[in-house]
């Protein structure tokens, strides 16, 4: 059954139909949230909020949008909010994308439970670069969809992905040499 059909059922009040959508996407979204946030606990919190938000927002979902992209946008926003809350706890105020872009990505230190080489490199990326890289190379989204999800332009997203790659490459090579 297509996502749109399950959404229709869920909108009619069938929470179990939404449960099927959860079944379909929970694992992938978990993977994304864990790579974004670096630890299981935060990822689970973000997913709880995201799926409940998605359920509440079903009335605003349009069939012309791919459900997966629509859902990931909500997950992405929750990851951003959670990361921003961590920053606020460290007395930093995050107002907008520009500010986010300036924040070094070190929030996982001490809270990370994912410690493979990839995560170590991802953690060092600025959040917006990490987002773009994960959406493109981790989750396989096209740039057009990423633009809808993030609100950024396609050229901006391509630049973020390129910068993420350029930054990560030497870190990963260094880790491989030292392994």
């Amino acid at each position, binding site marked *: 059954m*297509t996502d749109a*059909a399950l959404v229709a059922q869920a909108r009619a009040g*069938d929470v179990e139909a939404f449960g099927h959508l959860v079944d379909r996407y929970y694992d992938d979204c978990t993977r994304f949230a864990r790579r974004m946030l670096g630890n299981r606990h935060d990822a689970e919190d973000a997913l709880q909020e995201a799926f409940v938000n998605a359920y509440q927002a079903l009335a605003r979902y349009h069939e012309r949008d*791919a459900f997966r992209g629509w859902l990931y946008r909500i997950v992405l926003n929750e990851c951003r909010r959670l990361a921003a809350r961590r920053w606020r706890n460290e007395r930093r105020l995050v107002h907008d994308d520009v500010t986010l872009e300036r924040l070094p990505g070190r929030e996982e230190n001490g809270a990370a439970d994912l410690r493979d080489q990839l995560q170590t490199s991802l953690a060092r990326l600025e959040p917006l670069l990490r987002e773009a890289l994960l959406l493109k190379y981790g989750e396989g989204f096209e740039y057009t969809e990423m633009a809808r999800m993030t609100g950024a332009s396609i050229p901006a997203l391509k630049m973020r992905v390129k910068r993420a790659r350029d930054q990560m490459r030497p870190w990963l090579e260094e880790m491989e040499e030292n392994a």
Partner: protein
Amino acid sequence: MSARSWRAACGAAFALAAALAWLASAVSAAPIDKRLVERLDPTTAEEVWKVVEAAEAQGVPTDPLIVTALEGASKHARPERIVAAVRERSAALLAAKEVLGPESTPGEIAAAAGALMSGVPRDTLARLRQERPKGSLLVPLVVLADLVTRQVPIETASMAVLHASRLGTRDADLLRLRSRVEGDIRRGVSPAAATIARLQTLGLGDAPAPPTSPGGSHR
């Protein structure tokens, strides 16, 4: 008292005792469901209640019989029509219970009875049960009966629902199939052709997919 008088007196006492015993047994029988008493005239209520009691003795769910009578009352049906409807329903429920098996739910039995009353053969119901020995047959039976009611030939409707069940089609997909067939019929497609065409789309599009074409299951 003479011997003859004594025998007469004993006979009378015996007859009286027998009458009292019969009366006692009659009084101790279950009272007529008060819904029937409130909504039907006394004679019809009693007639219906007899059918209900007989059905209960055969293990047939009785609430559907009572609500059938109440439905008739609300629709101002003639008393004899009400009693006949209850009898027909009772026979169909019994047949449905026999075909579907003792572990069937009341809903399945009621749905199967409806299907039988619309002409679906028992064999189809038995085969449906074989396709889904543990799962609920409620939605397949509802869909099957609906298709037949919309003039889909019984063989075609039966084949469609059996085939869908064999594929492991989810209830929601089966309901969607029904809705689409209904829409096609409204647009002038023959019931049989609509059913076969929509059946062929089952099993496709189960994976996460790009947006569907507009309309979906709402029309």
